């Protein structure tokens, strides 16, 4: 770097004056002698440069001792001075040693004081001392009630306490500052007599009984509360006073005695009992300590259980690695393996009608069989023959009835889902009914009964009871609905009769508010008719193509349902309209939501090409419903992404493509009359704070009801995976709340999301449905 010197050089200004003094300084420093302390400068100068051979001055210590000679240390003055303790009234004078305050030196006397014979030096040094500490502030006394004879007679009298006893008690209370343990210890009936005067008292004294602490407390609190009330009327007490007053008033000696008896029992536990409690407490402590950890672990476990299938969907290639990383979930792993194998096996043989037919027939025959066969493929995909031996090894012991109960072993008749499942999942399935509205109603009923939706302790028994309860609720709800419908029908018929007879509408009609409501909200006959047509057509196409043709099992039920619907339509005598209306609707919807429509169209095209496959797939899915639950959840999750819905409901429920169809049929078949009830009920619920959900629901309901005919939904099919078609609807409705009667589109949207998640294979239902 260039220094100033360089600059000077370059500028031709010479070395500059800066340099010289530094040189000088350096020289000086080098020459300087280590200065010896303790010697005056003159002496050191005499020595010159030579260093003395012997150390003539002691090097200073780091910390010198205080010495009076050096005047480094001056003793503070202490003096024994008398004082009078503040809390005393008797003028007792005690003495203690006090140190003078440092700021006030005694008057300095220059030089020695000459002692004059007989005369003390008059200049006595004066010191100042700290003020006495006000120790008397700790002399506090407790305030006890006091009363005159008259007051006692009027207010404080008690049956079981004499005046003397009360006096004695109050005296003790003030003496021992309300330390009840001490008071009870010192309470001596013998002393009461000694407080009295004369021999007469002795006779009375015999009656005084000893008292328990509770009796003493009770009496004192009575007196004190009374006293407090006399002093300050109840109305003008301040909160603390009133709290005290209330506390004293409500003292319950019996409870206290009981508590003490129990405490005594607790105190006299045996060693074993104490040990047991100790271990329990330790366990509790451990649990509470690790609670957060447990919760985190459980959450993690849930996350894994839920996330794993969706992973499979998304990234088939990586799925294995990801699942392997979650150690301890070997069950899940094996399940996924099995599924993977299943898929692989199935994938190359879409045209293998033999295998699919087999599977279909198996599905058709019975579900239990299916599940069994599923298990076979799962556990021992390669060597099914070994399975029996394996299971024998696993269950070598025959459990007794009691043991089975204890370990929760069950022999369920319904088919088992493969893999790990939680009981509460099953329970959730129970609470979700066919339609959203139904589900809400069931939940409302449960909340009314104060039963949490997720059972806190889902033991086998509890679950069974819960299932029973829910089915009862469902039954009741259905009954109510039927009642409403029938009564409505009766009314309609009466009305018709009246019209036929040419009578004017009666005021009777308005008698029931419910009926009015229904009338108001009932759609125009034309509208109803139109929509119902759509439904009929749709169901017809469905029945023809999928259900009736291929399936033996669930198909007929749906069909029946549909037929019902049609029948009812006829009864209603609404005028049927053309499918075109529906298509128009669709067109509108397309305008509203281009994006989804485009997607759907794509899906359509694909599906057209692979219609055969779809059908197979769908059927497959019916059989493999449970297997696919997770997949469907995955779908739901995906849909969340696509539709940008709030997916809470979806996350919990399952969507099954086939069920979407069945489901919707049924859901559309929700009778019109329900609305009256519904609104009532919903109002209630809103009051309970479900506001948001419910309004959504209402919107959905409005939609639905527009679409619905007066169709019975008598057959409550025990489908497990009902509900979510509705959810979809709801969500879509959320997105476009204006589009009433846009069923087709809604369905399309949901299905498309499915399709985009699962590949074109799985979106057949939606397409068919639209057709």
């Amino acid at each position: 770097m260039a220094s100033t010197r360089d600059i000077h050089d370059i500028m031709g200004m010479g070395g500059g004056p800066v340099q010289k003094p530094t040189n000088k300084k350096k020289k000086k420093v080098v020459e300087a002698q280590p200065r010896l302390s303790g010697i005056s400068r003159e002496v050191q100068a005499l020595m010159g440069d030579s260093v003395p051979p012997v150390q003539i001055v002691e090097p200073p210590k780091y910390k010198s001792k205080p010495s009076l000679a050096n005047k480094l240390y001056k003793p503070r003055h202490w003096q024994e001075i008398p004082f009078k303790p503040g809390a005393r009234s008797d003028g007792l004078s005690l003495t203690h040693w006090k140190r003078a305050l440092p700021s006030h030196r005694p008057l300095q006397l220059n030089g020695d004081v000459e002692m004059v014979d007989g005369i003390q030096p008059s200049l006595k040094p004066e010191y100042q001392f700290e003020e006495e500490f006000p120790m008397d502030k700790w002399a506090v006394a407790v305030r006890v009630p006091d009363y005159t004879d008259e007051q006692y007679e009027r207010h404080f009298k008690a049956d079981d306490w004499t005046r003397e006893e009360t006096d004695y008690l109050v005296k003790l209370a003030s003496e021992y500052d309300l330390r009840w343990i001490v008071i009870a210890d010192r309470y001596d009936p013998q002393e009461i007599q000694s407080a009295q005067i004369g021999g007469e008292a002795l006779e009375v004294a015999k009656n005084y009984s000893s008292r328990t602490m509770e009796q003493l407390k009770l009496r004192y609190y009575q007196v004190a509360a009374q006293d407090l009330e006399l002093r300050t009327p109840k109305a003008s007490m301040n909160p603390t006073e009133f709290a005290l007053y209330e506390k004293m008033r409500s003292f319950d000696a019996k409870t206290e005695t009981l508590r003490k008896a129990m405490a005594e029992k607790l105190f006299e536990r045996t060693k074993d009992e104490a040990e047991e409690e100790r271990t329990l407490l330790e366990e509790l402590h451990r649990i509470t300590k690790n609670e957060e950890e447990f919760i985190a672990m459980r959450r993690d476990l849930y996350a894994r259980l839920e996330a794993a299938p969706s992973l499979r969907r998304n990234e088939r290639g990586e799925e294995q690695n990801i699942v392997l990383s979650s150690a301890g979930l070997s069950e899940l792993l094996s399940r996924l393996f099995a599924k993977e194998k299943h898929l692989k096996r199935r994938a190359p043989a879409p045209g293998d009608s033999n295998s699919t037919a087999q599977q279909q027939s198996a599905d058709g025959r019975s579900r239990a069989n299916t599940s069994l066969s599923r298990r076979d493929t799962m556990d021992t995909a390669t060597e099914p023959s070994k399975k029996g031996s394996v299971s024998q090894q696993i269950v070598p012991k025959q459990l007794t009835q009691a043991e089975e109960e204890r370990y929760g072993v069950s022999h369920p008749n319904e088919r088992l889902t493969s893999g790990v499942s939680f009981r509460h999942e099953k329970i959730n399935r129970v609470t979700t009914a066919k339609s959203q509205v139904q589900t809400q109603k069931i939940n409302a009923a449960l909340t009314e009964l104060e039963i949490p939706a997720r059972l806190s302790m889902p033991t086998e028994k509890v679950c069974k009871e819960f299932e029973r309860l829910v089915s009862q609720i469902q039954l009741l709800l259905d009954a109510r609905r039927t009642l409403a419908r029938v009564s409505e029908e009766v009314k309609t018929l009466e009305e018709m009769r009246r019209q036929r007879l040419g009578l004017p509408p009666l005021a009777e009609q308005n008698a029931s508010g419910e009926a009015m409501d229904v009338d108001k909200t009932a759609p125009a006959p034309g509208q109803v008719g139109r929509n119902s047509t759509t439904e009929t057509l749709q169901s017809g196409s469905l029945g023809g193509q999928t259900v009736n043709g291929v399936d033996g099992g669930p198909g007929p039920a749906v069909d029946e349902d549909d037929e019902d619907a049609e029948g009812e339509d006829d009864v209603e005598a609404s005028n049927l309209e053309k499918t075109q209306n529906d298509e128009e609707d669709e067109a509108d919807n397309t305008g509203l939501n281009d994006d989804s429509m485009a997607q759907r169209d794509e899906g359509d095209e694909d599906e057209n090409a692979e219609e055969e496959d779809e059908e197979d797939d769908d059927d497959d899915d019916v059989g493999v419903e449970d297997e696919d639950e997770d997949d469907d959840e995955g779908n739901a999750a995906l849909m969340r992404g696509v539709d940008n819905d709030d997916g809470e409901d979806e996350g919990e429920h399952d969507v099954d493509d086939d069920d979407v169809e069945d489901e919707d049929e049924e859901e559309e078949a929700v009778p019109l009359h329900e609305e009256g009830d519904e609104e009532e009920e919903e109002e209630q619920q809103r009051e309970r704070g479900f506001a948001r959900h419910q309004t959504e629901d209402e919107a959905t309901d409005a939609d639905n009801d527009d679409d619905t005919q007066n169709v019975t939904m008598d057959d409550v099919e025990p489908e497990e995976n009902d509900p979510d078609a509705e959810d979809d609807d709801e969500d879509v409705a959320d997105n476009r709340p204006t589009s009433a009667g846009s069923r087709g589109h809604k369905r399309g949207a949901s299905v498309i999301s499915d399709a985009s998640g699962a590949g074109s294979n799985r979106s057949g239902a939606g397409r068919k449905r639209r057709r």
Partner: protein
Amino acid sequence: MAALTSKDEPRTAEYAGDEVSAIVLDPGYASTRAGFAGEDAPKSIVPSNYAFYQDACLFGDHVIDVPRDNVEIRNPYSRDGIVEDWDTAEKLWKYSFASKLTGIRPNKALQEWLNDVNAVPNLQKAMADAEDTERALEDHPLFMSEPNWNPIKNREKAIEIALEKWAAPAFYISKSSVLSAFSMGKSTALVIDIGASQLSVAAVHDGMILRKSITRSHLGGNYISSQIRSMLATHDPPITINPHYMVKAKQPVDAGQPANAILKTFDQFKQPPQTSYHRYQEEKTILEFKEVCLQTWASGTSFRGQGEAIAREQYAHPFEFPDGYNQTFSSDRFKIVETLFDAQCHSPSPAGSLDAQYYPAPEQNQTIPGLVKLCINQCDVDLRPMLLASVVITGSASLIKGLPDRIQGELTRMYPSTKVRVNAAGMPVERKFGSWIGGSIVASLGTFHQMWISKKEYEEHGASIVEKRCK
């Protein structure tokens, strides 16, 4: 002044003591302790035994050990540990502080009037005053301890002596168990005090003793001594103690061999020292035996039967008597202490002896666990867990090896449902002088000033004030 609530915390300065140079006097059956309040140990420790020699009382540690002509060792206390002989007790107490702490106060007559005849106003009055000025405690308030079971009369007598005879400006008396609890920093405690004459258990709540809970028995240090005596007497061969004062010369002998010692004769006296003197000297040897040999059976097994056999084999300990006789003691040294816990371990003293009269076989409820049980049962059930959580052990006899641990074990076994925690000071001085230390703490507190009974109050209310004020 605004009333204080429990939330008002004292400032740091307020914790500090405010010493008014009070004297703390802690009289006991074995020794009388005195010292200035605020110190951590008594400065003056005088044996309560005194030598009665030629119609005079000799106090002090060494004076009474000298063998004298017909000297008798006496004790002003009864075997309950309360004062019987007030005249001597007063002298003894005065000696305990006057000899080392306050000194004999200089006579005003000597100091002021000796050189100035004119200053003497009235000779008669002067002589009376001179006597008066000898009063020992004119500048020092007196703080005393008393046994838990001290009768009211004795308390009144004590305040009378202190305020009238010693002219103390103020006086206070407190139960020794309370003070022991204070010395361990507890205001609520179950105090097990194993003194010389008495074993006492008492519950202290909030600095106040619960009168109904006071229990005691004779299983104190002296009882243990009597057990040692009877053990030695029943030993095979019987061992007689020749205290140090009797031994003139001795030769070392092997274990179990008879002593080879020359004993002193006391022919120079008209009458040799009395039995009480001999006994007192024996007691010194026994004390040594206690310190060296006695041990508490701590193992989980019960001592009787199994433990005794184990102790016999494994825990032998030698002891040499002043005359050179030495012997190993094994199970006996446990058995003696075991009596404090198990009444059946009592070994009866020779019939007709003083010991047999004074120290009869104890009942089971006179042992430590028995007394604790009695005491606890007298307390409120809410208080019991608190008491057991702070059990304070004090008293010289509790210095026997392993005793606090054993008590801890016993109480834990007795009360499995609550936490038992035994507090015993680690230092022997603190254990021995627990009640004195507690008194020293209390009397040096600034807040204690309001508690003193002043002379004026005493004059107004009479001696009965002590019962009102010292609760």
